[in-house]
């Protein structure tokens, strides 16, 4: 297969996949060094789902109350149910303040204290008010500010491009191949360094807070390249998803004092986390909600409970939580000033992802062998900062801090290394994917397959899991993968072929979902967001370790030899709130 070299071949020092907070922060860092840097995104950058983050970005600024780096570190370790690597958390908390002050210097419109400093609010699992916020649109203002900074520093943008294959061989990254969504056609991006910052994989579930774009493309590409994924079974369910829609209602609501109540009007968190109540970590609040629902105390016996803002008063709601208020009003016709808002747990954050070290270099095995020139940051990565459960407002900080560090490390790498040669037939893998969908004779369509996957992931791989359900899911995924081989698209044209993109995304969903289920089946314990009704206790003796998973000869191979980095002063303890 030939390529139009003038138009479709790009030789760029650093290529970044994903235009969310991690990708843009890395791009900015590389651009400032004078190297060429391109951001490839399947949406316009400001459409990225970092903009959906609402409540805040964590840093122990101590602007609203006493706070310390040690406290932030311990809270994150405990929140992770001790699965996070503590060297990563140490680096994270040490960089967090700098990351926030830099954002402020870029012009981020943070909400302010009376004396004009960045305001901070309480958040689940944090022992001090640590979430630096801009009303309840923190992710939105961070994303837009970073995009504007990237414009200033002349980052190249390839908007509406879908990456179809990574060019990795002999443990060296050489670049990637992407499809031009707007015009059609494959492009080769030949790069010294590549960063994968493609966000989460929550679109495998029906009830999710994630955007349509969050189809885990990065993790699927890595799996396809013969590299492992880490801890994929750990997926956070956010306790305050808007009923039926799954849309996020910020934890900021509870940070500002909102209650969660059941059918009897009880603040039931008193029975599950008496000290922290609604501000216990998300895994615990979601499980408590689901327990209330399962035991018949959902509203009217149904599958939802209430988020109650009413006692906060009109002024506080409209000043601090305008987005939460508007979402409930627009989507459910519920006026949060006067009525409680129906909520349910919603698939939200992917703790698992592409394994990498503290330098954000992608690794290919339990001993940490680096894939040269390949980096990852943000939700798609698994460093592991969040372990089995992420604390609210740590994700924006994660994406920004490790995005910045990735930019620094990539810059250093690009200055010391040339362009590794491309493989002989770089387009082949991508071309086959496109041709099969557009020229095939199969009669399956992508939509019903995706619908079945999502419905059943919500049913069988939710807040509570057990072996029987997960085995059913595994069989179903294999059937759906088989059906996928017969998928073709209605739209056979080049320009803005949404049909084609959705079909390609479905292949990714089906691929990594199998890893999620295999990991969840193998992990016979309950830790953080992974709760097994048939193994309801955390088992540090056997399971204080990470899950690595490869696809080899069509089968998922698991490895549990990657240990957790634990410092002597932070030994695992019982986790109570």
């Amino acid at each position, binding site marked *: 297969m030939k390529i139009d070299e003038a138009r479709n071949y790009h030789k760029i020092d650093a290529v970044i996949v994903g235009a969310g907070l991690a990708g843009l922060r890395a791009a900015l860092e590389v651009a400032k060094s004078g190297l060429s840097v391109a951001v490839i995104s399947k*949406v*316009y950058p*400001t*459409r*990225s*789902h970092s*903009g*959906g983050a609402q409540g805040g970005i964590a840093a122990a*600024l101590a602007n609203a109350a006493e706070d310390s780096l040690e406290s932030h570190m311990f809270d994150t370790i405990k929140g992770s149910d001790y699965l996070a690597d503590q060297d990563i958390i140490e680096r994270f908390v040490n960089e967090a303040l700098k990351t926030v*002050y830099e954002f*402020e*210097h*870029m*012009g981020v*419109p*943070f*909400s*302010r204290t*009376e*004396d*004009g*400093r*960045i305001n901070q609010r309480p958040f689940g699992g944090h022992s001090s008010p640590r979430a630096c916020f*801009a*009303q309840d*649109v923190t992710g*939105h*203002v961070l994303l*837009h*500010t970073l995009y*504007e*900074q990237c*414009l*200033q520093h002349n980052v190249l943008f390839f908007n509406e491009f879908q990456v179809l294959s990574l060019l990795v061989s002999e443990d060296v990254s050489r670049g990637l191949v992407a499809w031009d969504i*707007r015009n059609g056609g494959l492009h080769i991006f030949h790069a010294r360094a590549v960063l994968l910052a493609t966000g989460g994989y929550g679109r495998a579930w029906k009830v999710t*807070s994630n*955007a*349509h*774009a969050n189809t885990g493309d990065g993790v699927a590409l890595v799996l396809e390249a013969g590299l492992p994924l880490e801890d994929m079974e750990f997926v956070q369910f956010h306790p305050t998803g808007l009923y039926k*829609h799954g*849309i*996020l209602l910020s934890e900021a609501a509870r940070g500002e004092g909102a209650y969660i109540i059941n059918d009897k009007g009880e603040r039931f968190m008193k029975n599950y986390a008496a000290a922290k109540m609604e501000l216990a970590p998300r895994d615990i609040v979601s499980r408590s909600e689901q327990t209330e629902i399962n035991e018949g105390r959902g509203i009217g016996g149904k599958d939802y409970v209430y988020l109650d803002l009413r006692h906060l008063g009109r002024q506080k709601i409209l000043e601090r939580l305008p*987005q939460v208020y*508007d*979402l409930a009003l*627009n*989507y459910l016709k519920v006026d949060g000033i006067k009525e409680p808002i129906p909520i349910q747990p919603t698939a939200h954050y992917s703790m698992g992802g592409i394994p990498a070290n503290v330098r954000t270099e992608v690794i290919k095995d339990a001993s940490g062998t680096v894939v040269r020139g390949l980096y990852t940051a943000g939700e798609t990565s698994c460093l592991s900062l969040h372990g089995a459960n992420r604390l609210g407002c740590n994700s924006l900080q994660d994406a920004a801090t490790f995005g910045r560090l990735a930019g620094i490390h990539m810059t250093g790498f690009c200055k010391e290394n040339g362009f590794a040669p491309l493989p002989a037939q770089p387009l082949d893998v991508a071309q086959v994917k496109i041709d099969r969908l557009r020229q095939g004779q199969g009669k399956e*369509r992508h*939509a019903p397959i995706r*619908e079945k996957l999502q419905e059943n992931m919500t049913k069988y791989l939710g807040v509570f899991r057990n072996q029987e359900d997960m085995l059913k899911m595994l069989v179903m995924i294999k059937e759906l993968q088989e059906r996928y081989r017969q998928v073709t*698209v*209605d*739209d056979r*044209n*080049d*320009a*803005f*072929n*949404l*049909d084609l993109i959705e079909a390609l995304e479905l292949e990714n969903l089906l691929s990594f979902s199998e890893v999620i289920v295999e990991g969840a089946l193998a992990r016979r314990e309950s830790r953080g967001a992974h709760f097994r009704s048939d193994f309801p206790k955390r088992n540090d003796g056997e399971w204080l370790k990470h899950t690595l998973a490869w696809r080899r000869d069509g089968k998922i191979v698991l490895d549990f030899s990657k240990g957790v980095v634990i410092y002597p002063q932070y030994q695992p303890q019982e986790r109570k709130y």
Partner: protein
Amino acid sequence: MAMIELSVKILRYQPGKDEKPHWQVFDIAVEDESTILDVLNEIHWQHDGTLAYRRSCRSSICGSCAMKVNGRNVLACETPIHRFGSKLKIEPLSGFDIIKDLVVDLDPFFAKLKRIRPYLILDKPTPDKEFVQSPAQLEAIGESTLCILCAACSASCPSSWPNQDYLGPAALLKAYRFIFDSRDDGADQRLEIVNDKNGVWRCHTIFNCIEACPKKIKITEYLSRLKVKVVENSL
């Protein structure tokens, strides 16, 4: 929850196939609580895979799905069908080239943003911690920072349609956002850029942008403050 029958008329354009845009009607049944985006998904997933449109977050923050429904610019994801009755007419945003169906070329829109230097310009050193900014100083720009760049405002603006060089409401709002930021030192540069026949003076206070804005930002008002600032600055 009940099902409702809808007649959905969509402006279609497939490049390389259609000479010009044309209407196509889909008769479908959806749940009565559906949004416009649900309707488009239903058509795309169940009836005609060739339909193209943009969407991502579903929660009115990403700005992908601005389009014209029964003559009004809206975000498809947050707009319930019950606002319109049983007949829907869906077309792409006006004033932009159509790439395909409901997908328009927004590159010129984003290029205008860059023209007003949309970043904090500082001629003072940065402090060790944050700049001090009072709640009142933040309040001056607060609402303007909620813009999601969906382009609904530009597409509703009669001053924008005939003149591709006009900066348009979104870029001018962004200029306002930085000029009135207490931390910024770049007001003079930006005021010079917007003090142009294709800058603030092309805004004829028609107020369509306010009506179109899904974030209810009082754009016309901010542009008027910008005009005052330009005049003050040139005295």
